[in-house]
């Protein structure tokens, strides 16, 4: 299926958010996630199933004012 991660399209085999993140290089990283505009806590990623066309947001700490 095709998902979008931070607007970039990816063809993935994995079915859950946790597995997709692992396959795209995010394992062990300090990140927070949302799917289709809704926050998904780290603990909920393994149980969060993805569907074709889902939009994932991945953010990391950054400088801010």
């Amino acid at each position: 299926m095709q998902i979008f991660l931070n607007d970039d399209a990816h063809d993935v085999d994995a079915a859950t958010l946790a597995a997709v993140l692992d396959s795209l290089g995010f394992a062990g990283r300090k990140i927070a996630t949302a799917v289709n505009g809704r926050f998904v806590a780290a603990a909920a990623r393994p149980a969060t199933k993805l569907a074709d066309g889902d939009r994932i947001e991945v953010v990391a700490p950054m400088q801010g004012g």
Partner: protein
Amino acid sequence: MFYGVNLSSRLLLGTARYPSPAVLERAIKASGAEVVTVSLRREGGTGRAGQSFWQFIQSLGLRVLPNTAGCHSVKEAVTTAHMARELFDTPWIKLEVIGDADTLQPDVFGLVEAARILAQDGFEVFPYTTEDLVVADRLVEAGCRVLMPWGAPIGSARGLNNVYGLKSLRAHFPDIPLVVDAGLGVPSHAAAAMELGYDAVLLNTAVAEAGDPVEMARAFALAVEAGRAAHLARPLEPRDMAQPSTPVIGKAALGGL
């Protein structure tokens, strides 16, 4: 001072726009800040900027105040706050809901709505607001126990645009910690805010984009301390007429009338 947390420094410092991480680190030290603001942004699978910034933040051992900078809707701000809470492991959130792209003026209607949602969800909200009294009332009613009115638009370096409004706010909320957030340009602006009885100031660009950010951080720290001391020492009210500071009684009679 803020949600039950006592701090000795009354200066909160932003971490953006410094020439280098080394300068940022020295500026934070020079400012004496115990709270630094941070944010979150997209990162790809190969990006490492966020990970190294996270290590840097941890190495400081300071409290972080994550923001929802750049959010223009309630939904966006609420989701960002949730991501920030997990990422930085703190209930504190500097809530920004921006209503106008040019002035970065808060959308106070969205702000109140987002503050209510977040406060009910256990967040400790630091709302970036205007000096409007009624909006401030609504924010307190929504659960905010800190208010952060702007001095002037973010990054504008204009200082306190509405001293009267800020004074009224202070008088109206004697028990709510008030922080002037945004728009400060030089240390005298920070001193003025503290002289009004504000509890703290939050600044970023004024330090980060100064010619020498480390020296400017030190200058702001001194100004905040001076302004606070002046407030506690109860300043004079301005008067219209002169009043001789040197007593007139006992002056030598030397031929004048």
